[in-house]
């Protein structure tokens, strides 16, 4: 049980002349609450894309629980417990809230390859999906199409779908992005209450949230790790103040 939840070794990615990831050595402890911050365009989302297999790295390695997953497909990584959310909500908009979550659970359980029985016969999955919605305050809207919900609620579904996959490592890409201030409370709440055994890496521009939740912070600038450490150290770091905290808060 000594292996890290997630680790990258000399991870590099270039788009032509642009280096979105240069030599990133990143470590995520088991059960960690780890924030990834950095100015716009620093390469935070690209890092998530690399780790989850949306992008193939130019060089370097990705280890999940000690296992090299660099050449695995996206689906294979999810099956091993590596789950992400999207900065811009990526949901099945025309489908109901309940169905969004049920689809995720069906994939987790390997039921989605069944083309003989009606989906409604897999009742346990639907019940599990519904029960997942209750604590997130989404149960009353279970049968409404996602597109009818306020954006803040959609962000909650984004988290619900990730949790439905029973992740070991959860990557949250700006979970509160685009949400009006009155609605962020519920999202912050949810993040604080995430099961302790999940290792969480979250990208966030809201410093208040970062310092409230994170035990460690990594600062990314122009695709490279500027500094990494506990919140107090990051807050005092002159380099960080210069390139990041000095800028206007998001």
């Amino acid at each position: 049980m000594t292996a890290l939840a997630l680790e990258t070794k000399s991870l590099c990615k270039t788009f032509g002349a642009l280096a979105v990831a240069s030599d990133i050595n990143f470590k995520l402890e088991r059960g960690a609450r780890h924030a990834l911050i950095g100015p716009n365009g620093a390469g935070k989302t690209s890092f998530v894309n690399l780790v989850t297999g949306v992008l193939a790295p130019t060089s370097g390695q990705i280890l999940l629980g000690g296992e090299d997953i660099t050449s695995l497909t996206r689906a294979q990584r999810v099956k091993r417990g590596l789950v992400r959310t999207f900065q811009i909500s990526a949901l099945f908009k025309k489908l109901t809230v309940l169905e969004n979550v049920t689809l995720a659970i069906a994939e987790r359980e390997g039921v989605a390859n069944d083309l003989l029985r009606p989906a409604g016969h897999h009742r346990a999955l639907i019940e599990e999906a519904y029960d997942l919605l209750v604590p997130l305050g989404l149960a009353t809207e279970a049968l409404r199409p996602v597109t009818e919900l306020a954006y803040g609620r959609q962000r909650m579904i984004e988290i619900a779908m990730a949790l439905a996959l029973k992740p070991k490592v959860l990557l949250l890409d700006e979970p509160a992005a685009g949400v009006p201030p009155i609605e962020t409370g519920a999202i912050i709440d949810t993040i604080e209450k995430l099961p302790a055994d999940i290792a969480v890496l979250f990208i966030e521009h809201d410093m208040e949230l970062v310092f409230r939740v994170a035990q460690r912070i990594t600062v990314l600038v122009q695709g490279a790790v500027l500094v990494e450490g506990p919140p107090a150290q990051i807050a005092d770091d002159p380099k960080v103040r210069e390139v990041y905290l000095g800028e206007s808060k998001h």
Partner: protein
Amino acid sequence: MTDSVSPGSPVDRKAVIDAFARRHRFKWYEALPWVLAAGCYFIFDGYHALGAQIFATILFALSLDLLIGFAGIVTLGHAAFFGVGAYAAGIMAANGWQEPLSQLVVAAAAASVVGFASGMIVLRTAGLTLLMQTLVVAALLQELANKWSSVTGGSDGLLGMKIDPIFGVFRFDLFGHTAYVYCLLVLFIGWLIARNIVYSPFGRSLTGIRENTNRMHAIGAPVDQRKIVIYTISAALAGLSGALIAQTTALVGLNTLALSKSGELIIMLVIGGVGQLYGAFIGVPLYMIAQDRFSQIDPIFWYFWIGLFMIFVVVFARGGVLGVCGRFLDRWRSR
């Protein structure tokens, strides 16, 4: 939902889950096409041959709906599988194998093999590239059929097809009585298969792929594999349709593989409504009956009006006839 019911209360929970879990149950209106089709057998004497063509084409359009409407795989080459099925049945019939049901099986198998093989190549792409590649597959097959005239009859078409009576009893008659019932029954089976797929977890995951492919990847779905499976099944159904047309008209020509065949099919499906399972049942009869009436008067006139009608459907009637009816019903209910 009333305010007196607290969110997540047991009563509510059961009601919501029940409503969701029962979506696949048969609704009364789903019997309409079959009742109508059975009734038309007795009413429209002299139109049985046309009826048989319509049923076979509905099956063709239904198979396309599985791809476009449910999986979001837009193709311009679906006639490839129709043609392969038609030629498979036709070549057998012209070379001494005259039993119709085994011809259907071989046609479906042949089409699914072609669907699987071409799907492995073309489904890696999406959008315009996919459109072009599916088109190319059909064009290649058409050229193959054209060149290989010793077997296919080339541009003259396949001649001399002979089909045995079904079960050795029901002879294909000149009036199309047998063909009518035969095509209707095969369509019914095809519809059962399609409907079953659509409501299965596999079918729902296809809808997920259509709605948001990235999200499907993110929840761990083997997206490419799912697409290939539905592409293969759809090809098999299209092959069945082609075989039906071949058997009931005793004619197979290069036009079964033509781009115009694929295009016309899309038009019929769009008129009826894409992705709603019953669009094919509305669009195909509308189109084919109108074509039967108008094309006798003036074929150019006919294509002009169908063109105009298509523009109308695309601009004003999104979702086709079914889409318009659905919106009308919604408005009426919410009064």
